[in-house]
């Protein structure tokens, strides 16, 4: 049974130069305990999607439409108060910027305690004890001392661990991680990913991982959804997607990943790039959203938007040509 079902999510922003359709009709689901990765380049709407799930989009200028069913309840129909009871408790979030996501004038302990006191009704002492436990859990040494420290006294990796501690303090059913490792050193990235996986198996939370790092996706996700220009263009189990990507955009993304050692073996390979730019989301798009940058695009693509079709079992993509094997990698 799906823990989260998103149906035709549309998050639009009113701007002086027109309506920006940052997310335009995206549907997906996440099963209990599953890890779904949402990938795409900057501006494809993946972060806006995750913020919409938590209803953290400021309205106005934003507007969220569609349905977001979490454990059967449509989050978009809840009152602000009901939504607050879900945030940080049933669904929590880790952000990209550990350096700025923690409040600089409150102690780390207080920031972990707050979520426990809001949702679990713990008193100050119980919350403090639990905060220390959480810090231990996320691998912060000397938690009793650290709990009284301020964010500026911690390194970036430590701060992201604190963010994870806050996010997991109430044992959420769904954890949304928005580029959790992008701002960190490569060595720290691996540690943080491992930590997330460990904790996931311990708490049994489902994860939505927002990232543009396909290496990370391969390592921890079970299913992948590829977004482009505010829409879903492909979705498949991770191994399937890496083995046979069906959408030209996904193929482009995979081609743009540098591989170590290719030049040593003599098989030197130029890093493939996707030419062109993401279309302006303030203008209506006719045809396939990717047509402007696609090497295979034909008049058909420019006139009629391809629907999402099942190209292989559990593998869907929105491309007129992928089924014909014309672009099989």
């Amino acid at each position, binding site marked *: 049974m799906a823990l989260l079902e998103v149906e035709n999510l549309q998050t639009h922003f009113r701007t002086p130069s027109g309506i920006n359709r940052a997310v335009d009709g995206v549907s997906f689901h996440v099963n209990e305990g599953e890890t779904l990765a949402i990938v795409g380049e900057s501006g494809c709407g993946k972060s806006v999607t995750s913020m919409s799930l*938590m209803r*953290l989009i400021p309205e106005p200028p934003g507007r969220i439409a569609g349905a977001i069913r979490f454990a059967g309840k449509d989050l978009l129909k809840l009152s602000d108060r009901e939504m*607050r*009871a*879900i*945030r*940080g*408790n049933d669904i*929590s*979030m880790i*952000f990209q*910027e550990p350096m*700025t*996501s*923690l*409040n*600089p*004038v*409150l*102690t780390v302990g207080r920031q972990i305690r*707050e*979520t426990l006191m*809001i*949702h679990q009704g713990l008193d100050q002492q119980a919350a403090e004890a639990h905060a220390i436990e959480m810090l231990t859990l996320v691998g912060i040494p000397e938690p009793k001392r650290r709990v009284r420290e*301020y964010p*500026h006294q911690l390194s970036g990796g430590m701060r992201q661990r604190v*963010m994870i501690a*806050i996010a997991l303090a109430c044992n959420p059913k769904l954890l949304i991680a928005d580029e959790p490792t992008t701002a960190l050193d490569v060595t720290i990235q691996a540690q943080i990913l491992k930590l997330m996986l460990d904790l996931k198996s311990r708490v049994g939370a489902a994860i939505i991982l927002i990232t543009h790092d396909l290496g990370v996706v391969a390592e921890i996700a079970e299913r992948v959804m590829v977004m482009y220009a505010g829409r879903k263009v492909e979705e498949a189990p991770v191994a399937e997607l890496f083995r046979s990507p069906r959408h030209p955009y996904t193929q482009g993304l995979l081609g743009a990943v540098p591989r170590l050692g290719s030049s040593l073996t003599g098989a030197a390979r130029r890093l493939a790039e996707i030419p062109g730019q993401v279309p302006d989301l303030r203008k209506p798009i006719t045809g396939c959203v990717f047509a402007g940058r696609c090497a295979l695009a034909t008049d058909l693509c420019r006139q009629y938007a391809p629907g999402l079709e099942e190209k292989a079992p559990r593998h869907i993509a929105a491309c007129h040509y992928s089924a014909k094997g014309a672009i099989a990698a």
Partner: protein
Amino acid sequence: MLPYILRRIVSTLPVMAIVALFVFSLLYIAPGDPAVVIAGDQASPEDVERIRQSLGLDRPFLIQFGSWVWRILHGDLGTSIFTNLPVSTMIGQRLGPTLSLMCVTLLLTIAVAVPLGVVAAWKAGSFIDRAIMAFAVFGFSLPVFVVGYVLAYVFALELEWLPVQGYTPLTEGFWPWLQNLILPAIALGCVYIALVARITRATMLEVLQQDYIRTARAKGMGQGGILFIHALKNAAVPIVTVIGIGIALLIGGAVVTESVFAIPGLGRLTIDAILRRDYPVIQGIVLLFSFVYVLVNLMIDVTYTLVDPRIRY
């Protein structure tokens, strides 16, 4: 922390020295000869000369300055030319009302301006925001004496809710003391409230855009907790700074306010002393106000460390 405070106190000495030099020079910059004024219309040139000698006005400038500073360091601010009372005694008698007025105004300002600024920032662009900011512009533009007379007319003369004028010491009860200070504090506080509300709004607007506010929301915090704990504490440094700078406004405004509401405080003493060219009294008051201002700024610097853990001296 303590070494820092001590260092700061020592560093105020040059400031105070310059203030002292300036205050002392007043006597020479100002037109008119104090000896002539004191002696009065009927005095002969000999009388004037005698008074000049008795005041030491015939001695060289630096000698006069030196002995003046020396006396001040020993707690002697001189003697009033007009009343023949020690200046420190006169200031002491008038300190209570002025301190009361300033404290009540300060508390009123913080209690009103900060919430107004926070709400304006929270509801930025809305009708409430516009109304608050319009009020702030209005409050900032009105002179203290206009507000003072209007308040006195409406609330004291017409509605008879509060006394028109005067002052009752705190020793005679809290309410009698406070009711005499409410209207003066509102009159004096208008500009101050406007200033602090504007800064609070501007700083809060910036803080509310920060990532950690989004984090607080993602935790399920309520609006009140986000505004007054997560955001306000981050906005505190500029707000505290402006509150401190505003003390200068209060000192200047107190002189006018005390005249409007007939409060026997330092402001009235200042005006009386200026009108009588009572130089020792003028010097004593200016010196005291400067000292208070320097002290308040030191306190503000120390306050920074309480609101922002990243600031350490």
